[in-house]
């Protein structure tokens, strides 16, 4: 099959984002509403009866939605939110597992001009609280299995006026501010006055972890569609006939940019599986749905590798024609493995919450260098900057800070309530994602690591500060330091160094208790996979914990300058 993307050179020649605008029928100054583009427009193009979403869960339940179903159902959700007094600019949190209400509800929120705030449903009450408080969220759409977390924090969230439960079964009474709403009641709303958002109207608020301080709300606007549409068409190579599977959860940016917005804007059929990980379960799903384009993550790919080649051979994988990966560096072994078992390489893609869409990538047809992130997407000016001078590095192979020239359509517009942190992301008119890389003589980027203490575990960023703060809330913990520890599957996992208060003794049971404490309070991702008890933590003379030193030990690296160290344990 011919690729949507011809050659890299052809694509970068005379590139302009207006290519995407023209294909979407958008002209500067027009109304631009992602909710409308992802449903109503596709129906108007004659695809109302085409399948938009095929969903199944672990119990074997299956649901299918055509584009007309998505249009009407998102209208229903929008109309219902309006009836509750939700208006444009209000933040509406989507706190659900990967159920249809999440995908379609996202569009419904956007259709009324409100801002969609998706949050990972495995977040504990503390993680949920800080994000809802910061955003001043007015309504949350959730499931009855997660509503208890909301109840725990409701009294501290005066802005939160409505809790919408999408699967209320009447067995237990609803409580204060809770209302029941089901997308399966009635036939949906045929017509909705879609709020006339424009290019710069806020659309999505995703929260991401920072090295210090609380998580930051990354504000995106409706114009992000221009980048998301074209990158999905050229990088993921999505075509009208494709069956697409993005394994990411819409609680994170991949799950919204390429799990909702891009595939729906392109009018393709996508499949969603609301289950946990199992190699055979995934292969079975690909075989059953006849998935053609698959967008996954290195952690999942390495888990599939671990399950062995025999598991793949039991299933018919011949429908697959294009594979992509995102979230963390894709190791060369994974690319070589996928070529062997699927006859196709995984194409790495590099981007992050703040960029909103793919920045550096391997376009279909481009030579894939296993282990490399690929080259800058057309229209993206990317380089690496010298760590000391902040000037672009011209020597191939020299590691520096990845830097991207601002101005692409899906670039974040702000950190919510945090102008200072937003300004800190730029240097010499370059946007700095916080990663280090080198560039080879062919223009391919090679990832070299984070430039800060943030932990990338399974493609998700975890703030050591957030985990350390939560650890201090455990009755036994006097001091804590959290660093990344290398891991074969997840690339990195959370490791905590803990000193105990008098009266508490190190033990395996206490370690488990602390692990579970963090898992429930923050999330399973943030749970330390290992806790090391120490008498004291290494600090500078000014009292700052030297995470750098602890991290270096974990990675077997040089410890470096310790002249400011207060106490070398």
């Amino acid at each position, binding site marked *: 099959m011919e690729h949507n993307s011809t050659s890299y050179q052809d694509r970068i020649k005379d590139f302009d984002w207006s290519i995407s605008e023209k294909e979407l029928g958008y002209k500067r100054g027009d109304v631009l509403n992602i909710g409308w583009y992802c449903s109503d427009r596709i129906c108007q193009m004659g695809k109302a009866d085409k399948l938009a979403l095929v969903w199944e869960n672990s119990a074997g339940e299956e649901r299918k939605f055509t584009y007309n179903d998505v249009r009407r159902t998102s209208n229903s959700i929008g109309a219902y939110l309006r009836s509750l007094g939700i208006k444009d600019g209000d933040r509406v949190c989507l706190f659900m597992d990967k159920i249809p209400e999440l995908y379609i509800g996202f569009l419904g929120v956007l259709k009324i001009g409100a801002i969609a705030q998706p949050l990972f449903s495995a977040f504990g009450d503390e993680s949920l609280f800080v994000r809802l408080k910061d955003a001043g969220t007015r309504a949350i759409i959730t499931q009855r299995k997660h509503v208890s977390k909301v109840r725990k924090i409701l009294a501290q969230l005066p802005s939160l006026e409505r809790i919408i439960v999408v699967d209320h079964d009447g067995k237990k009474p609803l409580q204060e501010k809770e209302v029941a709403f089901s997308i399966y009641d009635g036939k949906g709303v045929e017509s909705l006055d879609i709020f006339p958002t424009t290019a710069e109207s806020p659309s999505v608020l995703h929260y991401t972890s920072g090295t210090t301080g609380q998580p930051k709300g990354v504000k995106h606007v409706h114009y992000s569609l221009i980048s998301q549409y074209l990158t999905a068409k050229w990088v993921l190579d999505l075509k009208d006939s494709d069956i697409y599977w993005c394994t990411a959860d819409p609680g994170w940016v991949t799950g919204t940019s390429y799990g909702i917005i891009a595939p729906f804007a392109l009018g393709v059929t996508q499949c969603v599986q609301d289950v*946990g990980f199992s190699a055979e379960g995934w292969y079975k799903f690909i075989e059953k749905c006849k998935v053609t384009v698959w967008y996954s993550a290195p952690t999942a790919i390495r888990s599939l590798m671990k399950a062995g080649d025999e598991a793949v051979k039991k299933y018919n994988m011949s429908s697959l024609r294009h594979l992509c990966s995102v979230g963390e560096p894709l190791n060369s072994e994974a690319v070589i493995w996928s070529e062997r078992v699927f006859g196709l390489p995984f194409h790495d893609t590099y981007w992050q919450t703040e960029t909103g869409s793919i920045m550096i990538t391997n376009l279909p047809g481009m030579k894939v260098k296993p282990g490399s992130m690929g080259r800058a997407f057309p229209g993206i000016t990317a380089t690496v900057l010298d760590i000391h001078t902040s000037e672009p590095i011209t020597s191939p192979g020299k590691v520096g800070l990845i830097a991207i020239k601002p101005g692409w359509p899906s670039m974040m517009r702000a950190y919510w309530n945090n102008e200072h942190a937003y300004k800190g992301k730029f240097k010499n008119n370059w946007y700095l994602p916080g990663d280090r890389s080198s560039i080879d003589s062919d223009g391919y980027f090679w990832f070299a690591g984070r430039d800060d203490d943030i932990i990338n575990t399974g493609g998700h960023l975890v703030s050591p500060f957030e985990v350390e703060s939560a650890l201090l809330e455990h009755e036994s913990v006097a001091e804590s330091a959290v660093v990344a520890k290398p891991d074969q599957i997840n690339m990195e996992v959370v490791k905590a160094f803990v000193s105990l208060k008098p009266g508490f003794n190190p033990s395996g049971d206490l370690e488990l208790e602390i692990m579970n404490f963090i898992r429930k309070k923050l999330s399973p991702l943030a749970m330390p996979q290992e806790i090391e008890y120490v008498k004291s933590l290494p600090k500078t003379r000014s009292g700052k914990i030297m995470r750098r030193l602890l991290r270096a030990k974990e990675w077997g690296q040089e410890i470096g300058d310790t002249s400011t160290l207060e106490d070398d344990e």
Partner: protein
Amino acid sequence: MDDMREVVLKYVIQEYLEEGDDDINYDSPLISSGTVDSFSMVSLKRFLENKYKISIPDDKATPEAFDSVNKIVTLVKQYL
């Protein structure tokens, strides 16, 4: 065996099930259903090791081996 099954089932219900989750039994899928995610599996492994004073090698602690209470019990018994 029955006692161990009860202990493991009770622990899974207490630690990993959300309020509105369906009931589970000894054969209910845990990992493949998403009831216990792959990160939380580490804490479940640690619980088994502490409780039964065993060490389960990492390469044996697979999502498949942890996918139900009965499978977990079979795994644990190999290291008692």
